């Protein structure tokens, strides 16, 4: 299985701090995506990084990708209480046939 593994499984920080989540995967990929899930709800796409990219920014989000280590990180800067959610990485190894999700990181931002 190429399913990713997120690290840490849970993270609790104070509002205003930065949150970093890591994702490792097993096989070569076409792209890697990060999604957010509020409790019990559907997943929402945050950012996509392609296999030939090393870093990408979107607002307070910064994603890095190291294909040699088969790993990615998601950094949320200046966190807010509203960032409290689960965050998942997802990998697509070829085309659109199969997008598989990691195990997720539960982030709690304390006001």
């Amino acid at each position, binding site marked *: 299985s190429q*399913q990713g593994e997120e690290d840490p499984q849970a993270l609790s920080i104070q509002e205003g701090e930065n949150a970093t989540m890591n994702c490792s995967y097993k096989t070569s990929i076409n*792209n890697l*995506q990060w*999604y957010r899930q509020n*409790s*019990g*709800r*559907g*997943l*929402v*796409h945050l950012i*996509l990084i392609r296999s030939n990219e090393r870093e990408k920014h979107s607002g307070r989000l910064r994603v890095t990708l190291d294909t040699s280590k088969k790993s990615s990180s998601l950094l949320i800067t200046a966190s807010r209480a509203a960032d409290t959610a*689960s965050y*998942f990485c*997802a990998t*697509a190894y070829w085309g*659109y*046939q*199969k*997008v*598989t*999700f*990691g*195990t*997720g990181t539960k982030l709690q931002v304390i006001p």
Partner: protein
Amino acid sequence: EPEVTQTPSHQVTQMGQEVILRCVPISNHLYFYWYRQILGQKVEFLVSFYNNEISEKSEIFDDQFSVERPDGSNFTLKIRSTKLEDSAMYFCASNYPSEKLFFGSGTQLSVL
């Protein structure tokens, strides 16, 4: 923004019964997916569907499961004879040509 819609939001069924979960993907999307999530844990891929046929399926997607696009808008997941372990949140998603997946709000299936 366009949405994927799923019905019902909750489904309670008896073990051994058939259930059909329904989804309306985003209208110009061509790839459709079903995922499931047990108790807020990992999101498991079940099946992808393209051009009116299954594109890929996981080992979870055994003969008890089937998918169908009965018309131009709906995409369904059928579980023929439900088991207790089928209790989960089932998510429908769609994409292509967009690469990002758009998810519905899910159907919580409870098998008693």
